[in-house]
C-alpha cells in the first residue's frame, strides 16, 4: 500500500523518477549490495582463510554471479524503464529533463554493475573486525622484530645491508635476491681457476668485488646487520622502521636480552597461530642462537616452508609465504587500502559510461537507426580487432579509428544541419557518440606508440630518464595515462550531458525524408 502510494506520488509529481524507477532500483540495488556485503563478511573466517585473499578477494565464480545479478537487475529495470518515453512521444519536458535522465541512468547502471565490490567490502570489513588497524600495527611491529631472530636468508644479515632509507630500494633489494651461499661458491672458484679472468675483466670497485671483500670479514653474516622490515606499513604512526628495528636488535644483542628475544618470538608465534601459519619453531633454541658467539654470527637458517629443501622431521621452518599473505591481506582490509578506489573505480566508471551511452542512444534515436548502428558498431569492433592483430601496431589502428571518428562526426553533423536522410544521420550520430569517449585515449595511444618506436630507433639502451629527456611530452603522456583517462572520463561525461542531448533533440524533430 505504501509502495503504491509512493508510486502514485511520483507518477503525478515527478514523472521522470517514476519512469526511470530510480527509487525502486536503488532500493533493490541497496538490498543486493547488502546481501553481497553479508556474503563477503560471512565468507571470511579467522585463521587460514585470511592467507588466501592477499591479492584478489573474489573468485571467477563470484564475478560471474555478480555479473549475473547485474544482468537480472538491469533487465528487470529496463522492462519498466523502456515502457514510457516522454522525449520520443513529444511530451513537454523541462530544460534539464534529458540531462537528469542521463544521470539517473548512469547512477542505476553504475550501482547495478559493481555488486562484487560489496562482497569485497564485506570481506574487508570482516578482516578489519579480526585485525583492526591498531592491532595490525602491533602485529607488524612484533613480526618485524621477531623475524630478526628467525633467520631464513643470510642476505638479510649481510654486512653490506644498508639501513639508508633513501637507498632502500636499490641496495637492499640487490642483497635480498642475491643468494650468498651460491655467491660464496662462485667466490671460491674465482679465487682459484677463473680468478685471473675476473680480476682482468671486472672493475675493482664493482659490486662483486665489494661483496667478495665483505664476505671475507669476520662476522659478515651477523644478527647485528639485520635491517629489514618483513611487513611495511607506509606512513603509519607508531610503525617501527628499519633503523629503529636495527637499533633495538643491536641493543638486545649487546645487553644479552635473551628473555626479550624469546618473548618477542613467542608473541610472533601467537600472531602466526592466529593466521594459521604453518610452522615448527623452538623459541628457546631460536632465542639462544644469536648469542652463540660474540659476533652474533648467523650459523643456522630456518626453512621457509615444510617443503623447503630436505625437510628433516622436527627441523625448524616457518611458511614465509603464508605469513606474508596473511599480513598483506590484513593490511589490505584497513581503511583506504582497498583496491576499489585505486584500481577498480575507473574501469567501472568507463563500463558504466559505455552501457549508459548505448541505453541513451536507444532512448533518443529511432530503433532502426539504433540497431543499424549497434550491428555496425560490432562489425567495426571486429574489423579493428583483426586490423590490430594483423598489423600489431597500435598507432595504425589509432589513426584509422580517428579518421573514422572524424568521418562519422562530420557526416552526421552536416546531415543533421541539412535535415537529410534521418535514419542514416542517426546511424552516424550513434557512432559518433559511441566513439567519442575513445578519442582522447586513441590520441594518447598513438603518441605513446610513436614515442616508444622513436625511442627504440634513437637509443636501444636508453633508460626511462633518457626517453623523457628526448621526448618530454610523449613521456608525460606515457607516465600520466591514468590521469588522462580520468580527464577523458570527465570530458566524455560532460559531452554526453550537454552536447549529445542537444544533438539528439535536433535529430528527433528531423523530417524522415
Amino acid at each position, binding site marked *: 500500500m505504501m509502495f503504491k502510494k509512493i508510486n502514485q506520488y511520483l*507518477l*503525478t509529481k515527478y*514523472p521522470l523518477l517514476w519512469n526511470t524507477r530510480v527509487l525502486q532500483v536503488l532500493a533493490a540495488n541497496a538490498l543486493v549490495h547488502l546481501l553481497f556485503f553479508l556474503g563477503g563478511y560471512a565468507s571470511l573466517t579467522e585463521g587460514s582463510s585470511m592467507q588466501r585473499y592477499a591479492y584478489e578477494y573474489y573468485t571467477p565464480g563470484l564475478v560471474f554471479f555478480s555479473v549475473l545479478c547485474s544482468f537480472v537487475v538491469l533487465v528487470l529495470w529496463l522492462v519498466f524503464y523502456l515502457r514510457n518515453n516522454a522525449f520520443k512521444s513529444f511530451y513537454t*519536458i523541462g530544460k534539464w529533463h534529458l540531462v537528469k535522465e542521463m544521470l539517473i541512468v548512469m547512477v542505476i547502471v553504475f550501482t547495478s554493475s559493481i555488486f562484487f565490490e560489496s562482497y569485497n567490502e564485506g570481506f574487508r570489513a570482516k578482516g578489519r573486525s579480526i585485525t583492526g588497524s591498531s592491532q595490525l600495527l602491533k602485529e607488524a611491529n612484533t613480526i618485524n622484530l621477531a623475524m630478526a631472530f628467525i633467520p631464513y636468508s643470510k642476505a638479510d644479515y649481510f654486512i653490506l645491508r644498508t639501513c639508508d632509507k633513501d637507498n632502500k630500494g636499490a641496495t637492499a633489494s640487490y642483497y635480498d635476491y642475491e643468494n650468498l651461499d651460491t655467491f660464496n661458491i662462485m667466490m671460491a672458484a674465482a679465487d682459484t681457476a677463473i680468478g685471473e679472468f675476473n680480476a682482468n675483466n671486472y672493475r675493482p670497485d664493482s659490486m662483486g668485488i665489494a661483496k667478495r671483500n665483505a664476505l671475507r670479514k669476520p662476522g659478515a653474516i651477523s644478527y647485528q646487520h639485520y635491517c629489514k622490515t618483513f611487513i611495511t606499513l607506509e606512513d603509519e604512526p607508531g610503525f617501527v622502521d628499519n633503523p629503529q628495528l636495527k637499533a633495538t636488535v643491536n641493543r638486545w644483542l649487546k645487553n644479552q636480552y635473551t628473555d626479550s628475544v624469546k618473548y618477542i618470538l613467542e608473541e610472533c608465534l601467537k600472531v602466526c597461530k592466529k593466521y594459521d601459519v604453518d610452522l615448527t619453531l623452538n623459541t628457546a633454541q631460536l632465542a639462544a642462537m644469536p648469542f652463540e658467539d660474540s659476533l652474533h654470527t648467523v650459523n643456522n637458517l630456518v626453512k621457509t616452508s615444510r617443503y623447503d629443501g630436505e625437510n628433516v622431521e622436527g627441523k625448524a621452518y616457518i611458511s614465509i609465504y603464508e605469513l606474508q599473505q596473511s599480513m598483506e591481506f590484513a593490511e589490505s582490509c584497513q581503511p583506504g587500502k582497498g583496491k576499489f578506489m585505486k584500481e577498480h573505480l575507473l574501469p567501472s566508471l568507463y563500463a558504466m559510461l559505455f552501457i549508459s551511452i548505448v541505453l541513451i542512444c536507444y532512448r533518443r534515436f529511432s530503433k532502426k537507426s539504433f540497431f543499424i548502428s549497434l550491428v555496425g558498431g560490432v562489425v567495426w569492433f571486429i574489423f579493428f580487432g583483426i586490423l590490430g592483430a594483423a598489423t600489431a601496431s597500435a598507432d595504425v589502428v589509432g589513426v584509422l579509428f580517428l579518421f573514422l571518428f572524424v568521418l562519422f562526426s562530420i557526416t552526421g553533423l552536416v546531415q543533421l544541419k541539412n535535415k537529410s536522410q534521418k535514419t542514416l544521420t542517426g546511424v552516424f550520430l550513434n557512432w559518433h557518440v559511441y566513439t567519442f569517449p575513445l578519442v582522447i585515449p586513441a590520441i594518447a595511444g598513438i603518441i605513446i606508440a610513436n614515442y616508444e618506436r622513436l625511442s627504440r630507433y634513437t637509443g636501444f639502451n636508453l633508460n626511462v630518464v633518457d626517453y623523457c629527456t628526448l621526448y618530454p611530452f610523449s613521456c608525460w603522456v606515457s607516465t600520466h595515462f591514468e590521469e588522462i583517462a580520468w580527464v577523458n572520463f570527465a570530458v566524455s561525461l560532460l559531452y554526453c550531458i550537454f552536447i549529445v542531448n542537444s544533438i539528439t533533440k535536433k535529430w528527433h*524533430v528531423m*523530417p524522415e525524408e
Partner: protein
Amino acid sequence: MNSTYKPHLAEVKAYFYNGDTHLGYRRLLDAAIETQHPDIYAATLGFCDWYDARANTKPADNSDLNASVNDLLDKIDKVPLPVTAGGIKLQAAGISKRYSSGAFSLAKLDVALHAGKITGLVGENGNGKTTLLRLLYGELKPDTGTINYHISNIPVQHSFYDVKTRLAFIPQRPNAWYGSLMDNLQFTATHFGQTGKENYLWTEMIMARMGLRAFRNYTWGRISSGYKMRFELARTLVKKPELLLLDEPLANLDVLAQQVILEDLKYLARSQSMPMGIILSSQQLYEVEKVSEEVIFLQKGVARSQQTTPQQNTAQEGLVLELETTAGREKIQQVFEGYGLQKISFNGGVYILYFAGEAGISQLMKRIGEAELPVKYLRDISVSSRRFFDA
C-alpha cells in the same frame, strides 16, 4: 444559467429528458470538461460512479437520473467558462512532395487548419492522404512550399520540438504502449502540467469521456483494435493538443463506433475552453462529411478542396445523385427524361446521376415515385466528395 453554457446545458438536459441517456451522458461530460475546474471534475466523477452503479439496477424510470443531472448541471452553470480564442493553427502554402523512389508525388496544395474546425481528408488508397498528414506533422519535408504553425502554449523562444508537443498525430496503426491505461494517461498528464490530485481528476475525466473507465487497468495487449484507437485518442486528449491529425481513425471500428468517434471528435474540436483543429483521413466519405467543415479530396496526389456547406456547391455544379436500383440504365434515362439528366455512370452496384439546370431533389423524388422506379437507396451527393470518385 451561465449565458455561454446555456445552449450546451440545455442540450444535455433535453437528451436526458428524451431518454437519449448515452448521448446525454457524453455531452454532460463535455460540459464538465469545459469548466476546467477540479471541483466540477470531482462532482462529475461522483455522478459517473452513481450512473454506472445505477445502470446495473435497471431502474423503471429516469426521474432520479434527471434530478441528478439537473443538480450537476446547476453546479456547472455556476462556474465561469474559460473560453479560449480559436483562429488558424496551421497554414500550409504550396506544399508538394515527391518520394525519392519516384513512385508517388503529391501535387502542390494549400491547407489551413483552424481551431474548432474539422477538415476531412478523403481519397482512395495510395492517393497521398498519409503523405499529406505526415507533411503537416513535420515527419516529412515538403519539396516546395511552407508550413507555418500558430501554436499558442509554447515558449517564445521555441524549437520545433516545442511545437510538436502541441500537435498530436495518431497513425492508422498506433504504436503499442506498455503498462496500464491509467498509468499512461497519468504519465502524459503530468508532463503537460497536470500534477497531484488534478492529474487524477483530469485523467479520470478523459477516461470517462472516452468510455474507458472500465478499462483503466487494461494493457495494450488486452484490448481490441477498436479500443486501441480509443486508448490512443484518450492519451492524446490528455495533452490538450491544439492540432490533432488522425490517419484513418475509423478503419478498425464498427459502424456504430465510427459514428460515436466522429461525433466525439466534432464536440471536442468545438470545445469552447480548449478548441482544437482536427484533420482526419478516412475512406468513410459520408461519415467524415457529416462532421467536417471542409473536405480535401485527393486523387493521384492532386487535391480538390470542398466546402461542405450545401448552398456553395449546388449552384455551381448541379445536382448529383447516387442511386441503387434494380432497374436498368434505359429505364433510368426514360424516367428522368426532361429533368436535365446529363450523364449516368455505373460501377456495377450503384448509379451516379448528374443533372444540370434547375432540377431539385424534391422534384426528382416525386418523379421517382410517379414512375414507380424500384429504389433501394438514394443519396444526394452534390456536395459530397463521393462525386469525385470514379462511379
